[in-house]
């Protein structure tokens, strides 16, 4: 809402307060003032001049040589505007004047003839092009006759006005009108309010002889008022009205249209003027549109309607889409002499629906959608009639034709002073509260500390006690509320075990060298089925899509974090960022429903993608690209950190390298995977070799033992034995390790692989794997015999099971 201060001053005295100060005050009381703009920078020395004569320039076809009376003196001015003519009153910038844009007016010679000033267009005076009336758009501005020669144009054209842009929240629709704004400002400044008169002198002829109103959908249209005004003369509206409209951001058209717009801005009540003679009937019927019914609106677009829409008809066909826009057939035009003026109350939901379906949004529909004041509908109609009489020569017929079932009662709300203080933490008195209601002009009855407040219908947002609380608090001033802390019993706050665990996992991965990322949860159709962990794939999940995505890139709820993570890796690699070790902890969305009806299961996962040099210390010959074992080490470290027994199994996972991927197993359950991204997918994404992991955090949380029990630090020495087996290349070294662990229990506490060797001297299809075994007995010092017995048993059993021989 654009609020012109010069207009506002008609209703409330704002005194000497500056526009900026007023803006600050309004902002602090609840309506954010987005900006303070001035119509024009100061333009001094621009006055009304009378064009005494206007002749063609002796040396130029398109220029005119004018003698202009500016009151003090007569100036010779050359003017190129096509609409200049003798006898006009025009805006003259005299030598020494400065126009917006710091344009200085000097005496000049044009084609050998002296010119002592400039005759101005509205644009040159600082009015925005889009608000300039069409007849003045291509030339100079011509004043009406009643202005005085020599008078400064600044006030005449409202150039000294400041306009405040109110950023209205949906509850403050009352400020979509100058009257609503006036109530607000009057309350804030504690000033009296001067409301406009709605007095109308009407003729003896009755409107009832001209029009008949019939409402078929009273639920959607509880009030319809039809006013008939005859003998209308279409012409320009008065300058002051044009000025107000321009300041409010509306281009003046003609007196009838301007008056309906002016009253809409003044009262917040949209009005519509029909050309009565184009009505083709003497009745107005308001009904729901028939399905497929059409209407050509003012913008000359044909609109197809449905039963959800409310239309104004002449009894046969629609002539307006209620509250949104009129039809082109009944539009007021130059020839119009009789106007049918509509002031109606349309329920917001029907206008909303029409706006949504047609995409048509107007100043009118915005007000209906947000709700209008039932006590200003007829009143706005009367105000418009009054102005039509004054500025369009109209004769208003008596007896407005109405259908009226509108509820205009004011909501009654009880309030007790003590309750106000209890809720706000303040110590206001009943007198303070009464003062606030007086400033707001809310009617109330007071019985000591108890109030009954009658919420004015203009403030449709005030329906309950809490709404009044806000009014009291904001007028009292949020700044004046004390600072307190809740006094109720307090309990200690803490993260839950799961929340702490999530942080722990992040900390571990960060200290392991990984950077945390956050990617989008919404992914594309090409990425939705990539790199889904086998245990999720086993659920046969159905991708969940948005019904109206903003883009194809973000259409599906992800089933894996990895595809978007790979996108960030390739984004970085494309920008010469190497050595990328990324992880993300976030949710995937699993639904088994072909057509979603219930919330998908949201499962927490931790995923990583690594590419580049894990170790890069070249001068000491230490250089290592990320490989499978780097990622595996990270997972092993994570599980060790969380005290989770982990094992790995070769697995075939789509989109990963078939020979370099494995399932991650905890307590016999597959909880994720790791591996190299399949070279084909790497190529497709423009990725260098990239290794990924993906772990089901839900399982980690479930399997994780929160409080580890104490285990005695061993008092007795351990014994280490090394052993190297030569075995077939295909035998997984980890299987043999597990066998050793199983055989060695309980004395073998730890088994590590410390060497793997392949070479001709042991046979091309063989490998040698060296294991280091740590023996320990918590109860006593181990004897050589005990160790030897176990060791021999292991040798023999492994030999038997894997056909593996001890390397000598």
């Amino acid at each position: 809402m654009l609020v012109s201060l010069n207009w506002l001053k008609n209703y409330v005295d704002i005194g000497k307060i500056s526009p900026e100060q007023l803006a600050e005050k309004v902002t602090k009381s609840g309506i954010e003032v987005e900006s303070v703009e001035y119509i024009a920078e100061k333009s001094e020395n621009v006055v009304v001049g009378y064009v005494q004569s206007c002749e063609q320039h002796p040396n130029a076809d398109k220029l005119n040589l004018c003698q202009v009376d500016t009151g003090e003196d007569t100036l010779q001015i050359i003017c190129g505007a096509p609409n200049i003519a003798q006898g006009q009153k025009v805006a003259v910038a005299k030598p020494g004047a400065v126009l917006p844009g710091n344009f200085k007016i000097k005496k000049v010679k044009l084609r050998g003839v002296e010119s002592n000033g400039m005759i101005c267009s509205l644009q040159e005076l600082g009015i925005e092009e889009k608000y300039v009336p069409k007849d003045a758009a291509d030339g100079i501005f011509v004043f009406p006759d009643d202005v005085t020669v020599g008078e400064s144009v600044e006030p005449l054209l409202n150039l000294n006005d400041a306009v405040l842009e109110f950023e209205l929240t949906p509850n403050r629709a009352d400020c979509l009108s100058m009257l609503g704004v006036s109530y607000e400002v009057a309350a804030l400044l504690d000033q009296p309010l001067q409301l406009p008169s709605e007095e109308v002198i009407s003729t003896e002829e009755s409107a009832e002889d001209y029009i008949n109103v019939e409402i078929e959908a009273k639920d959607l249209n509880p009030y319809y008022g039809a006013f008939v005004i005859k003998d209308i003369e279409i012409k320009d509206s008065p300058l002051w009205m044009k000025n107000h409209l321009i300041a409010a951001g509306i281009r003046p058209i003609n007196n009838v249209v301007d008056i309906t717009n002016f009253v809409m801005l003044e009262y917040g009540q949209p009005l519509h003027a029909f050309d009565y003679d184009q009505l083709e009937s003497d009745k107005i019927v308001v009904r729901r549109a028939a399905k497929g019914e059409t209407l050509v609106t003012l913008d000359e677009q044909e609109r197809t309607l449905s039963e959800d829409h409310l239309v104004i008809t002449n009894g046969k066909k629609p002539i307006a889409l209620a509250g949104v826009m009129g039809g082109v057939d009944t539009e007021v035009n130059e020839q119009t002499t009789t106007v049918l003026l509509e002031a109606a109350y349309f329920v917001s939901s029907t206008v909303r629906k029409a706006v949504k379906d047609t995409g048509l949004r107007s100043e009118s529909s915005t007000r209906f959608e947000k709700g209008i004041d039932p006590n200003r509908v007829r009143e706005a109609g009367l105000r418009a009639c009054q102005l039509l009489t004054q500025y369009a020569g109209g004769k208003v017929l008596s007896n407005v034709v109405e259908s009226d079932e509108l509820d205009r009662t004011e909501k009654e709300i009880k309030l007790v002073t003590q309750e106000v203080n209890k809720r706000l933490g303040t110590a206001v008195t009943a007198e303070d509260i009464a003062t606030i209601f007086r400033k707001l002009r809310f009617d109330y009855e007071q019985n000591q500390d108890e109030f009954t407040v009658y919420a004015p219908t203009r403030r449709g947002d005030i329906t309950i006690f809490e709404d009044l609380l806000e009014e009291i608090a904001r007028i009292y001033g949020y700044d004046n509320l004390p600072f307190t802390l809740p006094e109720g019993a307090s309990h200690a706050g803490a993260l839950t075990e799961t929340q702490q665990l999530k942080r722990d996992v992040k900390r571990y991965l960060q200290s392991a060298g990984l950077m945390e990322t956050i990617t989008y949860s919404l992914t594309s159709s090409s990425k939705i089925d990539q790199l889904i962990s086998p245990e999720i794939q086993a659920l046969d999940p159905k991708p969940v899509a948005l019904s109206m995505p903003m883009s194809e890139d973000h259409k599906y709820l992800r089933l894996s974090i990895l595809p978007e993570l790979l996108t960030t890796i390739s984004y970085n690699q494309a920008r010469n960022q190497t050595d990328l070790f990324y992880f993300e902890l976030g949710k995937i969305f699993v639904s088994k429903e072909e057509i979603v009806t219930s919330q998908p299961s949201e499962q927490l996962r931790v995923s990583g993608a690594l590419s580049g040099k894990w170790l890069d210390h070249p001068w000491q010959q230490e250089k290592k690209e990320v490989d499978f074992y780097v990622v595996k080490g990270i997972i092993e470290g994570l599980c060790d950190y969380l005290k989770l027994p982990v094992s790995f199994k070769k697995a075939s996972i789509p989109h990963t390298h078939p020979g370099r991927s494995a399932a991650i197993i905890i307590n016999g359950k597959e909880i994720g995977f790791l591996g190299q991204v399949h070279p084909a997918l790497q190529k497709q994404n423009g990725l260098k070799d990239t290794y990924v992991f993906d772990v089901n955090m839900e399982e980690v949380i479930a399997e994780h033992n929160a409080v580890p029990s104490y285990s005695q630090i061993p008092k007795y020495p351990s014994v280490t034995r090394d052993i190297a087996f030569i075995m077939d290349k295909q035998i997984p070294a980890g299987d043999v390790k597990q066998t050793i662990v199983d055989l060695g229990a309980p004395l073998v506490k730890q088994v590590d692989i410390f060497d793997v060797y392949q070479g001709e001297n042991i046979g091309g299809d063989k490998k040698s794997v060296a294991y280091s075994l740590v023996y320990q007995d918590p109860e006593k010092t181990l004897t050589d015999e005990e160790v030897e017995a176990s060791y021999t048993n292991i040798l023999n059993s492994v030999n038997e099971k894997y056909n593996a021989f001890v390397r000598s």
Partner: protein
Amino acid sequence: MKEQLEAIKQEALGRIVSAEELKELQDIKVAYLGKKGSLTTVLRGMGKLSKEERPVVGELANQVRESITSALEEKGQKLEELELEKQLEEEAIDVTLPGRPVSVGGEHLLTKIVEEIEDLFIGMGYEVREGPEVETDYYNFEALNLPKGHPARDMQDTFYVTNELLMRTHTSPVQARTMKQFDGDQSVKMICPGKVYRRDTDDATHSHQFTQIEGLYVGKDVRMSDLKGTLDQFAKKMFGEDREIRLRPSFFPFTEPSVEMDISCKVCNGHGCSVCKGTGWIEILGAGMVHPNVLEMAGYDPKVYTGFAFGMGPERIAMLKYGVNDIRQFYTNDKRFLKQYHNA
């Protein structure tokens, strides 16, 4: 014999002085003091001496032995020192060569801010609650006093999955769920951080996915001044003890009265600059007293229980605190961006 001893002493000491290596000292030791050494040999001849001479010569011999021994030790130490010095010299390295890099990762800037806020409120006795990102229309809107067709629904453009399911547009549904779980008979003190989604085109100031942290305090006799005091504590801890807060009336369907909180601009200290658009204040969060309809729908009696709620965007806070000027940076994960804020 005396002369003999004296000569041995002189000779030995002379050799010790000129010795240059530890090995030589060892040889000297053997040559004079060893089983076949010259001093030992001389001493063996003591038996031939008279009773009177024996103690005298014996004493002299001991003196000679001692002086040789101590000269050997002294020289030995010296030579050892020299040898160590030499060794250390040989072991010297070029300290200007680069060290072996230790690669440490780090947390995302948003995580840092979220955890900072979490910890701050945990310190004030709040608990952290989480909830689903795909929400029902009921919990995202209706339970928050936003019935179907409510004009304020336009304030948030929503990604719908079905008519009843949507990507949550705020984390407030977690509040509604928590209250419902508590069955109207328990005070609530919680914050809920999480991802939220709006139907926006991504640009420097809009992101279809972003983060939110909301807080809720419901109890008996909770006052609006408690909200002001709580927000003040938060602002001072988060943005600095010298920050001031300002509350302005605003509108949210789920709170009444509603509040917008500004903090005094750190850049200009409230005098007005380009960061605060000349106002001296920067908008940080929205808040208010929980709307009685919201309490009622969650099973709380609004005549007994009152409460306050607040909500803020970590991206905005990060942008203000660290000067990040494009919201997309948080989700693009450019390594150069992520690294800047590790241990910030």
